[in-house]
């Protein structure tokens, strides 16, 4: 990075943060603070929904995942458009009609206070912990590559998000997310164009021949992680729970002047999300081809930690692996050229033979890469905190893009971190105020100024908690994976509660409350059974329809058992 990159990076990030803070500095109306400006249009809502969902991992890690494993991940998004149609048609009109601030407030009106607290508690628990990881995950990668201090990167990113989220609430989040998405789109398209100019015209065919372009897979096997069926069914329930019941998303679309704005903002995402993700994974597949054709492609992209160890006492082992990889890489390049010649000749038999040789060369190369990864992790346990695929795109950015554009792409990474972080803090502050603080201070609900003050304080506290947790996570390397699992298995039962609320009008609070707890136990049992007996493990997306269905069925059963007894709020 040089001065130009620093100017672009700091100018972009601080400019957007400063603009958002200044424009919304007088936000003292509770409705505006929690739902955003009444004049917010569908385009802003649509971008805000998109920005909240896509964190830095989407832009930093997903290209690397596609580079390593191909573009099949795109199928995870197949259920999203269908889920958004349901949210538009069923969830959103009810939230708007009741004038609620949070999704869990609706549960209180539909069922009782204990069900509301259950929903709000589950959200605060999982999102509060996730908020720390939202800062930590990109910070560790950027700090490693750029040589920055991890703790300072975490603290600075977190404080920036706190400043404008506390100042302007939802109004500031919506406003800044619009500009942050403009930076993200501009930066990603620029990187894509630069990459394409460095590739031969048959790059897509090479990627396909090397198994990276299997976008859809219709195989009906529940054990496969990415298929059309898991994507549509599992992805549908996952998206329905995320967009319909997670306050960080609900808060983005319940504002606006009319119901129309929220609906069109969601339809904007329903239409554009899969193409946008396809663009990102194709970028990854093309990055793979780029590095296949480069003469000096490193054995691992996490070169900072690799070089540190290569210069240490085990240097001979590391250099031997590098030499082995270099020889295999050269052989693979020869196989690629042979396959291209066979493909261009139109000789299908020669093409099949060349493809088989190329696949074997790729497999041999992958074996050495795995050996390199294991050797690095054995020498430096800190390398376990990230995956090598996380470093593919950032390596390309830092070594292949011109100065100025490097700063722009780093601004993309920080913009996405800030936008998703701000959405989370905003939702945590709102839920803590409306569903928790007000529950214990019901009389204070009528003092609007006090509500805004409390919402600001709670937003700031959640921000500080997230920073503290991110700093703590850096010392507990296995915690991130555990938290990601916990977050994904809390959603299904919560979605079941909302499905019962919307579609089964005769079911009452106690039935759904205990059904949700029972469904959560079922989901946990299936999950841990799969971990104990891997032969019976199912793709994690399937937990969403199973958990939701269990909650609905248990609710119906318990309602029959409990009858129509009068529900009492706790």
């Amino acid at each position, binding site marked *: 990075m040089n001065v130009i990159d620093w100017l672009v990076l700091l100018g972009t990030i601080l400019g957007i943060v400063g603009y958002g803070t200044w424009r919304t500095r007088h936000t003292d109306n509770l409705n505006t603070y929690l739902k955003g400006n009444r004049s917010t249009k569908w385009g802003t809502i649509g971008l805000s929904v998109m920005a909240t969902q896509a964190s830095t991992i989407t832009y930093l890690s997903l290209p690397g995942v596609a580079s390593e494993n191909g573009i099949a991940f795109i199928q995870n998004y197949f259920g999203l458009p269908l889920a958004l149609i349901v949210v538009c048609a069923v969830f959103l*009109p009810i939230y708007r009609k009741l*004038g609620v601030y949070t999704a869990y407030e609706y549960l209180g009106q539909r069922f009782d206070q204990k069900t509301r607290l259950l929903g709000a508690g589950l959200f605060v628990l999982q999102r509060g912990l996730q908020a720390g990881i939202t800062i930590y995950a990109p910070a560790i990668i950027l700090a490693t590559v750029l040589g920055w201090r991890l703790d300072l990167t975490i603290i600075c990113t977190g404080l920036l998000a706190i400043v404008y989220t506390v100042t302007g609430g939802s109004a500031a989040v919506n406003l800044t997310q619009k500009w942050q998405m403009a930076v993200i789109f501009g930066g990603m398209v620029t990187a894509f164009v630069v990459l394409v100019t460095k590739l031969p015209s048959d790059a897509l*065919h090479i990627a*396909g021949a090397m198994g990276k372009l*299997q*976008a859809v897979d219709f195989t009906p096997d529940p054990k496969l992680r990415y298929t059309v069926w898991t994507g549509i069914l599992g992805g549908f329930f996952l998206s329905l729970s995320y967009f319909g019941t997670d306050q960080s998303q609900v808060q983005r679309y319940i504002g606006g002047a*009319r119901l129309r704005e929220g609906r069109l903002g969601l339809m904007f995402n*329903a239409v554009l999300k899969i193409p946008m993700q396809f663009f990102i994974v194709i970028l990854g597949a093309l990055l793979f081809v780029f590095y296949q054709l480069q003469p000096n492609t490193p054995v691992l992209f996490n070169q900072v930690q690799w070089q540190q160890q290569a210069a240490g006492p085990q240097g001979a082992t590391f250099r031997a692996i590098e030499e082995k990889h270099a020889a295999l890489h050269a052989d693979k390049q020869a196989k690629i050229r042979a396959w291209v010649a066979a493909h261009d000749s139109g000789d299908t038999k020669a093409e099949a033979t060349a493809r088989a040789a190329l696949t074997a060369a790729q497999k041999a190369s992958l074996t050495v890469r795995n050996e390199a990864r294991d050797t690095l992790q054995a020498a430096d346990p800190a390398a376990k905190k990230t995956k090598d695929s996380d470093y593919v795109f950032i390596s390309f950015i830092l070594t292949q893009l011109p100065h100025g554009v490097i700063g722009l792409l780093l601004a993309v990474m920080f913009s996405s971190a800030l936008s998703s972080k701000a959405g989370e803090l905003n939702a945590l502050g709102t839920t803590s105020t409306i569903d928790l603080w007000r529950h214990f201070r019901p009389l204070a609900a*009528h003092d609007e100024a006090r509500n805004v003050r409390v919402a600001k304080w709670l937003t700031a506290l959640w921000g500080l908690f997230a920073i503290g947790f991110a700093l703590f996570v850096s010392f507990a390397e296995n915690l991130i994976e555990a938290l990601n699992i916990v977050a994904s298995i809390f959603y299904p039962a919560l979605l079941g509660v909302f499905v019962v609320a919307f579609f089964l009008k005769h079911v009452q609070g106690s039935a759904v409350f205990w059904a949700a707890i029972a469904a959560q136990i079922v989901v946990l049992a299936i999950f841990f059974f799969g971990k104990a007996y891997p032969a019976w493990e199912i793709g994690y997306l399937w937990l969403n329809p199973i958990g939701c269905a269990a909650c609905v069925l248990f609710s119906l059963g318990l309602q029959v058992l409990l009858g129509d007894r009068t529900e009492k709020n706790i």
Partner: protein
Amino acid sequence: MTMRPPPEEPEDSAPPDVPFFRTWGGVYWFTFAVFVAVVGALTLFTRAFA
């Protein structure tokens, strides 16, 4: 002090106010059709390159 504005006007049945669409059902069918077209395009892409 007032706490929150009154609930929204009954807007669920209001037309979408989008060119070429008279109802929200039409908007949803269009979105679904785009989804089917995108999955179809990805299937063709897979057949062409994978």
